[in-house]
């Protein structure tokens, strides 16, 4: 069906060109292939199974490739950030380094310590893979390029991610290692808290788009030519932070805080079992970036650009940019302490996220009741919400006392007076936070 500029709806009613060689939707080729199978007189279930297989294989293949790419990108980019070169020995520009790493991990001995719970020690790495992979099933990679478009996709993403908690706990517990157990308990507490933030952040998106279907959210964004990011800046920030927690990225990499608890819940894992954790981390990063792109950054659409450029390329471009954000924070920021991170979730993000939900609900109600046109309503909402986000963050920070002068950076006292004592006991603002948790 040809693209109709007056409605802008050529996107949803069907592919622009349904020829198999139209690269803008790889689903076309698959559809043509399935039709061909049907024409050969195969029984009904064959195309059904084949389409599923194609989807699964494509996603898995892409995940593996892109995970290798992620590892390479991260190592090179962090290398640049750290004023060094990064891996450049294996292959051109070190491109084969991730493969070499993988081979190394395969060849290394997978040690199981004697007092470990053998069965659960094995379950942990497997279980941690599942949520990361399952999330990928509902992400629309391009027009018509998804494994399944669940009508509760957004909820599914959250629900599946919550299984992560159990996997981490099992891994930490089965290792029978104190560092691992500490890391696991930290992670569980942290994931549970930030799951809440994630749900509240996504609620705003769902309220605006009026559907929990991932594809519908993308369509909504392309229909109104607006990314949810501009309507929901506060939710976007909370979601980014919560996602960083979920995939264990700095400054929230407390679960595997290297300098404190060695490697957290996967301290005892080696060889390919460690490789599973390592891979799952990157797959989860891939999935989380995909969710962010789909729900906040317009998915595979970009203001009509998807008519000329394959949508899946746009999607991947955005995905890598989002991933760069995570690399950037990792390369820059130190790590928070667990109680500070929890306090940040409960005392800072949660009230703001709740307020955001209320404001969003009110806006959608106004939009519907006052019968405003989208061209008027959405820009106003965007400006209001951006202003509100800044005001709320600053206001809440002031209210919580984070901006008081004694909490700000200071400089050392310079003196010539030998033997003088300048000591004043700490004012106790941070101390209050600390003991309040205990």
């Amino acid at each position, binding site marked *: 069906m040809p693209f109709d500029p007056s409605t802008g709806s050529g996107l949803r009613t069907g592919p622009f060109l349904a020829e198999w060689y139209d690269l803008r939707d790889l689903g076309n080729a698959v559809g043509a292939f399935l039709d061909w199978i049907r024409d050969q007189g195969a029984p009904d279930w064959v195309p059904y199974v084949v389409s599923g297989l194609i989807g699964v294989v494509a996603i898995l293949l892409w995940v593996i490739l892109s995970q290798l790419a992620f590892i390479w990108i991260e190592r090179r980019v962090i290398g640049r950030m*750290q004023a060094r070169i990064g891996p450049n020995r294996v292959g051109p520009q070190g491109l084969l380094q991730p493969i070499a790493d993988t081979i190394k991990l395969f060849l290394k001995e997978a040690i199981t310590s004697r007092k470990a719970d053998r069965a659960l020690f094995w379950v942990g790495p497997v279980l941690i893979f599942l949520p990361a992979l399952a999330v990928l099933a509902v992400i629309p990679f391009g027009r018509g390029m998804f494994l399944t478009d669940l009508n509760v996709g957004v909820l599914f993403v959250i629900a599946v991610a919550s299984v992560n908690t159990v996997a981490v706990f099992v891994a930490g517990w089965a290792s029978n290692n104190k560092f691992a157990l500490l890391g696991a308990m930290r992670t569980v507490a942290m994931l549970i808290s930030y799951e809440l933030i994630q749900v509240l952040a996504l609620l705003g998106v769902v309220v605006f788009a009026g559907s929990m279907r991932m594809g519908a959210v993308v369509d909504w964004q392309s229909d109104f030519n607006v990314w949810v990011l501009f309507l929901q800046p506060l939710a976007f920030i909370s979601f980014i932070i919560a996602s960083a927690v979920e995939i264990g990225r700095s400054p929230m990499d407390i679960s595997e805080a290297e300098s404190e608890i060695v490697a957290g819940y996967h301290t005892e894992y080696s060889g390919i079992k460690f490789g599973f954790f390592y891979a799952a981390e990157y797959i989860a990063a891939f999935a989380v970036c995909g969710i962010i792109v789909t729900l906040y950054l317009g998915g595979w659409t970009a203001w009509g650009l998807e008519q000329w450029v394959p949508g899946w390329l746009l999607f991947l471009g955005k995905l890598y940019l989002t991933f760069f954000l995570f690399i950037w924070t990792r390369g820059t920021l130190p790590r*928070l302490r667990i109680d500070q991170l929890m306090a940040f979730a409960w005392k800072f993000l949660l009230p703001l996220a709740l307020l955001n939900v209320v404001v969003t609900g009110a806006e959608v109600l106004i939009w519907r009741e006052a019968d405003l046109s989208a061209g008027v309503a959405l820009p106003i909402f965007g400006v209001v919400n951006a202003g509100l986000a800044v005001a709320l963050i600053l206001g809440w920070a002031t209210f919580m006392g984070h901006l008081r002068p004694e909490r700000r950076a200071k400089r050392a006292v310079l003196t*010539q007076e030998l033997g003088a004592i300048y000591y004043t006991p700490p004012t106790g603002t941070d101390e209050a936070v600390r003991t309040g948790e205990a």
Partner: protein
Amino acid sequence: MAMKTEPFVVNVGPQHPSTHGVFRMRLTLDGERITDVDMVVGYLHRSMEKLAEERTFTQNIPFTDRTDYVAAMTGNLAYVLAVEKLCGIEPPERAQWLRVIMSELQRFASHTIAVGIFANDCGAWHTPMMHMLREREKILDLFEMACGARLTTNYMRIGGVSRDIPPEFMPAAHALIAELPKRMGEYEGLLLENEIILTRSRGVGVLPADLAIASSVSGPILRGSGVAWDIRKADPYAAYDKVEFDICVGTNGDVYDRFLVRVAEMRQSIHILEQALDMIPAGPVAVQMPLAPRPPAGEAYSRIESPRGELGFYVVSDGGPAPYRFHIRSPSYINLTAFSDMVVGMTVADAVVILGSVDIVLGEVDR
């Protein structure tokens, strides 16, 4: 009724990413909070003090490279000052200034490690440290120019320094000194005002001034607790009485203040270096000494402000070619004694940061 929990004992080290060597602490935890800490040292003990009694005074200089291997120059200096005091000799003027230059370069280099590792302990995934190491490399290049070695310099000699600096040293040093303030600005922007570092280090590991004095800690830890004490001012050695600099002190005695003091001291080091590079006179760099000097019988204690604090060498001579007794007052070891006072009541994550702020070098702790 309080919760009955098992005392959860975690053994941190000797193989642990952030014990800075082979330090070991047994932490008794209640949840994440530390109720007791047991420090175990000695994994790197090399019997240095006893070995030194079997070697001549000159042969002992390389040992002092290996006590505090992050700051070899100051180790050399403290030892040769003690022997010079024993022999009653005074090194020439140029040697004095070279000692100041090398000490301050070493202080800067050592503080880059201290600050970088501290940021690492806060979880900053190596970025600040790698940037710091970039500057340290340049300083080590200067050391290599001066004495041929980068880490174990073995540069100071009884009665001077081993050799004069080569002609290319001065331009390189001037260029470096011109560059460093810019870098310092970057670090101060990245680290000092970093919100997360502020939250992580404010009010953590507080060592009050009276306790700091009572525990006889020294160096940035003492100054971080607000006591303006610096051997370079209190008991000037080399040419420190001729240069202008400030003592940097903190006010609250927490981890952040120690960190602050180190960063400020790096600035002061640049300031001292600027003066010293201008004021250094020409002339001989060492007095003539026998290869194996035999100082008159007696004892001498000399102390200097090493990057970690008061580094003292106590040397007793019985008139022979080797010291009769050789003792090192190592600042790391004595600063470490205050560690348990700072760490109890904090969390595991804090313990690591506090240890990072104490800035121990295990070679010096265990000797």
